[in-house]
């Protein structure tokens, strides 16, 4: 599917404008997704991280991963409500960027913080629900990310592929639990994120989804697929 299919295009000039707009939009998306990482590296270089830089970097990469995951989850509802099918194409890059930040988050935790000390890591993951939830969410995200790449669906089998694409839906609540359990006090940001995720998941209720889908010319592909 072409990324910039906005609907009927009668004139070549109009098409070119839309192509240019689509390219700019995609570039903007990549720049915006990479900006938090660039800012983190800059702050580290400039010595502007917290006095507890590992905690700071862990928190920031985790927050960015969650924000990108929420944006990825918002794509389907946005398309269903707006009818702009072309938006569907941003779901995968958003999801993959969420995965990137989750990977850095996990790297900081396991390598920079725990120094790959297996005794402490094993205890943290097996005995502490926040770490277990985080790891479970990571595995689910990894499944969705890996099977979103070309070449995977055929040999995985349609059914499993579909479940792996839906795994991203389960990852979001797990990420929320992970962050709620890791902190001493729950702030209004936690509450807002939880409400937002719940709201976005409501659009996955089959009856509501079908009702909204009827207004589109053809049904949307399932989660994560282009």
């Amino acid at each position, binding site marked *: 599917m072409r990324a910039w299919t906005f609907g009927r295009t009668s004139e070549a000039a109009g098409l070119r404008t839309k192509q240019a707009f689509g390219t700019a939009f995609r570039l903007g998306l990549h720049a915006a997704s990479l900006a938090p990482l660039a800012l983190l590296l800059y702050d580290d*270089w400039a010595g502007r*991280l917290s006095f*507890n*830089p590992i905690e700071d*970097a862990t928190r920031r990469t985790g927050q960015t991963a969650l924000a990108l995951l929420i944006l990825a989850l918002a794509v389907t509802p946005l398309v269903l409500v707006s009818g702009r099918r072309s938006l569907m194409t941003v779901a995968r890059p958003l999801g993959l960027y969420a995965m990137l930040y989750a990977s850095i988050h996990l790297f900081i935790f396991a390598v920079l913080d725990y*120094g790959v000390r297996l005794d402490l890591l094993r205890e*943290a993951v097996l005995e502490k629900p926040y770490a277990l939830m985080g790891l479970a969410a990571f595995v689910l995200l990894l499944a969705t990310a890996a099977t979103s790449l070309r070449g995977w669906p055929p040999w995985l089998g349609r059914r499993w592929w579909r479940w792996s694409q839906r795994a991203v839906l389960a990852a979001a609540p797990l990420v929320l639990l992970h962050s709620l359990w890791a902190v001493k006090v729950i702030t209004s940001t936690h509450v807002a994120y939880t409400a937002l995720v719940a709201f976005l998941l409501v659009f996955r209720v089959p009856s509501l989804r079908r009702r909204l889908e009827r207004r589109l010319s053809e049904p949307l592909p399932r989660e994560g697929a282009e």
Partner: protein
Amino acid sequence: MKDIDRSEITPEHLFLSRRKFMLGAAALAGAALLPGCGDRGGGSNTQTTVSPGPVGATTDELGQALTSFEAVTGYNNFYEFTVDKDSVADLARDFATRPWTVEVAGLVARPQVLPIDELLAEFPERERIYRMRCVEAWSMVIPWLGFPLRLLLDQVVPQPQARYVRFVAIDAPERLPGQRKYSFDWPYTEGLRLDEAMNDLTLIATGLYGKQLLPQNGAPLRLVVPWKYGFKSIKSIVRIELVQDRPATFWSSSAPHEYGFYANVNPEVDHPRWSQKSERRIGETGRRDTLPFNGYGEEVAGLYEGMDLRKDF
């Protein structure tokens, strides 16, 4: 008290360079970094700033280096201002700690209301270098100035039925944004058993790094109980009260299953949601093993003989 000269404190550019922890380099190095990470004996320790204190000691009794003055005064848990540890210093900058009076009352023969400067004049400061272990699993080594709480308690003469000491922090929502913003049961309160309070390690701190205490560290006076998690060391105290029954305390009232009255540092008793076996020393990368009673077992383990420290956590 001997003040250290401002120039003796680590210059800002040196300290800033220490705050970089090479996230970028580490991320690029990737797997190449793996073998050395578990070893905390090497270069990582050298990141801790050593600034001279008034008596010249640069390590604690275990040879662990002092945490930099900048980190000690720039990274604070003080919810009366904000829950953001890096922002407390800014918000507390103009917090006035004069006039200030401390009331010592309750079951005592000679209750007192002491203006802070009288109290400071009465109890000469000495330096104590203590490890501080936060319940959030980070730690510092801090050169405090202060005097043992015992000296103050001896002066007011506790009555025989006094069994606990209750501490109350300042309650001033108009000056403390956190008290307006967060719905905790303000003011902050803490408590110790009388024998814990009389232990020689238990300090009333009035300064650190040879200087008067700054607001973000709990000026003008705070408690320091080094073998307990940091939240026991209540800041900006206005009232010390001897009581018969175990007093309610801020965190144990807020989440009783997570924070106990005793709150002794104990690697064997985890927080319900995270491990207490290891800690991150501010200024270092990697983790240190957490010591029972934060390394002060010799001095204080006797206080808890026969107690089940899992139950009385």
